């Protein structure tokens, strides 16, 4: 039912782009140039591979410390090898579960240093098989190089990918109503709070201008003025915050007829501005790192309001616990 598309070129009519479209195209091109300019390895999948490697090695170190010590030609240091195993697993889990794994990959680099130091110490002891130890040092050095490369790329990337780029989201949904009905409802911006969860109110203040009030965490409120920058009746509306407002954001919605007379397909693009700025910060709080989830859920509510007249809820129903709904519902809605 729902499709989140990053590839907007598929099935898009070749019509003149709105300002938002244009801005997005430029941005995407800049992004892909930035990424393409690297080595051709995707640092995220490299990090994932390193994460799994960490976990695998860690498990081996914990389960079979003796064999592992033998493999690298050192004396049997069971507790030490096991503690290194724990460290490996921690790094691995950190890399795999963290949306920003850079610090965890750096933790691997630190671990590599420790490994190398231990192996170097082992070289001094006559009891050890030095040939094997040298081999192990070579192998660890190779992995260290990979870790450093990956960590550097990730650290450089975090600034670009999620630090400074505007928070954007797209969503589309089929609605069992005509283009005209969808357009008419959306065009009256005072309707937006009925389905956009973070809005408290919108007032149309004349022709193309409107005043928006968003709910923040607690009782915080954020307000700004916006204007319609482009509209094609029954097909498209684009809006953006007025230049000079505290908040910088823009959005557009397009309605196209669904094949076979099955209503229309609404496609929404939202740009919530720089995450560092007020609304961006607020929205980051509200929707974590996934603004597209909010946009998709809002669009689903738009569909409900249009098709059945209201958004169905279970808020306030009885239950054999203190609250009518649970954490699962709040994630899902």
């Amino acid at each position, binding site marked *: 039912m729902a499709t989140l598309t990053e590839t907007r070129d598929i099935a898009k009519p070749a019509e003149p782009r709105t300002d938002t479209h244009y801005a997005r195209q430029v941005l995407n091109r800049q992004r892909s140039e930035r990424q393409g300019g690297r080595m051709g390895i995707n640092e995220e999948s490299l990090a994932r591979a390193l994460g799994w490697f960490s976990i695998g090695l860690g498990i081996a170190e914990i389960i079979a410390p003796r064999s592992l010590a033998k493999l690298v030609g050192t004396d049997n240091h069971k507790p030490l090898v096991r503690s290194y195993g724990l460290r490996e697993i921690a790094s691995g889990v950190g890399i795999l579960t963290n949306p920003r794994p850079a610090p965890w990959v750096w933790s691997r680099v630190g671990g590599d240093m420790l490994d190398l130091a231990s192996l170097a110490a082992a070289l001094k002891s006559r009891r050890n098989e030095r040939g094997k130890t040298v081999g192990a040092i070579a192998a660890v050095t190779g992995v260290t190089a990979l870790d450093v490369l990956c960590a550097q790329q990730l650290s450089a990337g975090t600034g670009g990918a999620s630090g400074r780029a505007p928070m954007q989201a797209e969503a589309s949904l089929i609605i*069992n109503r005509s283009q005209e009905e969808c357009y008419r409802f959306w065009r009256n911006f005072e309707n937006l709070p009925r389905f956009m969860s973070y809005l408290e109110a919108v007032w149309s203040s004349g022709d193309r201008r409107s005043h928006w009030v968003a709910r923040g965490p607690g009782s915080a409120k954020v307000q700004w003025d916006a204007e319609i920058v482009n509209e094609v009746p029954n097909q498209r509306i684009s809006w953006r915050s007025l230049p000079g407002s505290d908040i910088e954001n823009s959005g557009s919605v397009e309605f196209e007829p669904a094949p076979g007379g099955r209503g229309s397909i609404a496609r929404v693009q939202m740009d919530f501005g720089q995450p560092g700025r007020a609304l961006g910060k607020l929205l980051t709080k509200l929707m974590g790192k996934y603004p597209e989830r909010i946009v998709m859920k809002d669009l689903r509510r738009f*569909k409900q309001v249009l098709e059945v007249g209201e958004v*169905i809820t279970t808020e306030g129903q009885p239950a*054999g616990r203190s609250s009518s709904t649970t954490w699962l*519902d709040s994630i*899902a*809605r």
Partner: protein
Amino acid sequence: MRANCWQGKKKMQVEDVADPKILNSQDAIVRITSTAICGSDLHLYNGFVPTMQQGDIVGHEFMGEVMEVGSAVKNLKVGDRVVVPFPISCGKCFFCQEGMFSLCENSNPNAWLAEKFWGHSPSGIYGYSHLLGGFAGGQAQYARVPFADVGPLKIENGFRDEQVLFLSDIFPTGYMAAEACNIKPGDTIAVWGCGPVGQFAIKSAFLLGAERVIGIDRYPARLQMARDKSSAQTINYEEADVLETLKEITGGRGPDACIDAVGMESHSPGVQYAYDRVKQAMMLETDRPIALRQAILACRNGGTLSVAGVYGGFIDKVPFGSLMNRSITVKTGQTHVHRYMRPLLERIEKGEIDPSFVVTHRMSLNDAPEGYEMFDRRDGCIKVVLKP
């Protein structure tokens, strides 16, 4: 009010909770006069349905009297006697308009979550996990019924509750399973599971013109009900080899259609059960598809496999090659109850069927936990009706 709440695996508890209120303008509040425990409630009870939450009010087979209606309700008024279908459906979306009510696009407020699990979301269902909306269910004194103009069926004649209650789920569910078999005169239909849905599938298969219906189970009381109430042939799978017996009955060809009225907690004697039980316990599969596998292998070439039993997640070792190479059609789905309520009420009115034949136990709502325990042990317990 009193309501039966899920408090964890194998733990149902009747508690005092708040009375339901109108939350949407198309809601109605129903005072429940009869409510039943469904076989699919046992999947909740046994902890196999994901996203159940402590304190959820369960139950999705209920009927009663309208106490209050929301401002937008037009077809119902206070005092109407209604049976409530278990899927919640808006009546306005593409799927409702196509008659696929259990796939309503607007009734699951947690659709986003369901999409993560299943790709797309079906409709909301009363008291059946947060994946399906997290709606309070009907094993209670009162229930809130959303989209009251779309779902509830008015009962305007003097039928007893037990004669019409099962229009809420199991009668339409058994009927839809039989209808999916596209039965032609002379057909032989095999039904795995002679619980309440299986009993209605057997009856419905005969109503739709099947020549022979074979019920498969391991509980003598259920097999006997299938023989006595519907003149079915029966196979006790603990005593006979099901595939061999079916071949013998059909001269080697196999039944024209096979109905799985068992679902995710299937049993069998022998290793297969142990295999699936272990995989299920290790979370390597979520559902045990033993009956399903057998039904596929038993089905005649070009026949139909109709799945009415509930599955939740992933199953393992399904003989898909058998399905593909032998041109078997698979039909399944949560029941589009709204579509069947009126025509099946007419069959009841004409005296073609009296659904109350499945009831074996009548209890007070307060004894619901005991009812679950008994139904789960199954011996002689086929259908429990609770009186709030």
